[in-house]
């Protein structure tokens, strides 16, 4: 009986609690840890003082030898807008040029040496330039290299190799035999054209069929 009455009544408006929540959000926003505090690192113990987490062991050598993105950008005029920056991991992994072209920079001004912040740019990955400016991720990784101006042309040079896309691939022999046997049993015609379609739609998101109907409506009638 008591439960019914509380379910029927509206929630009590608590003005002071709402105000307190707003004030707490405001202070959280004002006193949020800056990039320079979040990504500060003790190079002896390889721990972040902010969170106490230790960085992965395989990265220790890179952390001691390489530098972060903003440690390159802070000594360039205009924080390196228009310059090309690569990552050492890309240099080792791929032959084709992969680099970010910086277009916008937001520095964390609380850092002593201005070596933290966010940057945006255009990515060229394995020779293919994407369109659109994106935020550069892994800015705080100790992995970045600056391409000198006199080597930019050389670095960007890329002759694309035509990739042949394979769409139809033959079935493995046992499976092919099983399928043909099943077809024979059920009386379907056996034609030799039994191939796996690699581009068949295997994953249907939740709204796939809804969008199908919408697309049909949008297309309208053929004539």
């Amino acid at each position, binding site marked *: 009986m008591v439960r019914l009455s509380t379910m029927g009544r509206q929630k009590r408006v608590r003005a002071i609690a709402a105000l307190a929540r707003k004030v707490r959000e405001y202070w959280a926003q004002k006193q949020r840890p800056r990039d320079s505090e979040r990504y500060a690192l003790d190079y002896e113990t390889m721990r972040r003082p902010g969170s106490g987490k230790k960085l992965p062991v395989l990265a220790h050598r890179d952390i001691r030898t390489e530098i972060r993105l903003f440690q390159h950008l802070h000594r360039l005029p205009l924080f390196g807008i228009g310059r090309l920056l690569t990552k050492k991991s890309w240099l080792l992994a791929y032959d084709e040029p992969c680099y970010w072209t910086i277009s916008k920079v937001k520095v964390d*001004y609380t850092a002593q*040496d201005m070596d933290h912040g966010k940057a945006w740019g255009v990515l060229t990955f394995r020779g293919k330039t994407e369109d659109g400016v994106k935020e550069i991720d892994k800015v705080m990784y100790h992995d970045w*290299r600056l391409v000198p101006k006199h080597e930019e042309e050389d670095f960007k040079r890329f002759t694309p190799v035509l990739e042949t896309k394979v769409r139809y691939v033959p079935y493995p022999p046992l499976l092919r035999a099983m399928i043909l046997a099943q077809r024979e049993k059920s009386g379907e015609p056996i034609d030799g054209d039994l191939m796996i379609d690699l581009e068949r739609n295997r994953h249907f998101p939740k709204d796939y069929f809804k969008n199908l109907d919408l697309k049909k409506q949008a297309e309208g009638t053929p004539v």
Partner: protein
Amino acid sequence: MLSVFKTEVDKFLISRGIKGYGERAAAKRCLLSAAYLDSQKWDQRKKDPQNLAELAALMDITYEKKLPVSSLTIARFIDNISSREEVEQAEYYIYKFRHSPNCWYLRDWTIHSWIRQCLKYDARDKALHTVKNQVQYGIFPDNFTFNLLMDTYIKEDDLTNALAVVIEVMWQEAFDEQCIQLLSLYVLQKYLHSKPELKLEDERNLGAALLLVGLKQNNTVGFSSQLLGLALLGKVELAKGIRAVYTRMPLIWTPGYLSRALNVMENTVEATNGKMLCKEAVDAMATILEIAACGTSESMVTDESQETKQDAAFDDNDDDDNEKSKLADYLNKFKKLYSELESFGKIEAESLLTLTDKLVQENLPSSEAGEILNYEKRLEKWEEERAVLIQREKELREKARQEREARQAAKATI
């Protein structure tokens, strides 16, 4: 006062066509002409007199309230400096501006104005200090400003400081204009001529500067600088490894600087437009190769014992080992190319210093004229920008004032 008088006299004499005035005047070696160093155009800008104390108070209040300071405020502060103490105060405010949210917006004309004011009030060391610590002060001068700063040091034969300026230009990769390239070549050659004691770090900086300048100059001096620069960088590479060469430098990380030096020699052999290589540069390359070759053959035993201690998967060590093993090949290739150069008559016997002097004498006046015109155009653009900023500030102030009045009126009616 005296400087104004001097520039007037200079202009008079130059207008009367008395050539070589620069060299006859005093025993100082003047490279840039008086027309270039003339600050008349700069002084003719529209003045914006402000009280420095007021501006300082305004900036302090804005910083305390954690609001952003506009670039116009700092520009006004620097424009209105009138004494040496105020230079020190301005340095502090530039530092604060760099560590504020608006650090990206420090204008070109503010930086130019700062250097000019430092030179005017005899605070040259301050200017150099701020340029050296460009990370903390945000001072990234353009070519014209660098030229002004370098010239004051060249005039007084202060080669260490002039070289420091050239190294800063190298780090900014700002060897774009002809004038700065010529001035830097002059400073570099003079410094090398005085045969100073060079640590490996200095050699690396010198090598990088020589390489970057040499790449822009398409003549004997340029090619010789490239060769010398690459040879020095190769020496550092052999001594300390490729990582020591490219870390925090505008240089590429692929190993093999000595092979690149040999490529330069090959290009000169194949070049058809009378470009030669200086004997000095080629000799320097020879000495470096020979010393390195002797050094590695002696220390091969000790090297192997050290290598086993380090990581097996250390790619850099592999690169360095490759380089050391290729030294014998480099030496042979060098001897072959040297004989080819001699047979084609492409070894220039004159010293690099005299060649650089000649180059500077020939090309500096013509390139100066172009740069002065560019500078004047840029001054106009800067004036427009400044006017736009002042206009915007006025509008913002008007809007803020109106809003405040509206709020006060609303409060009064309640």
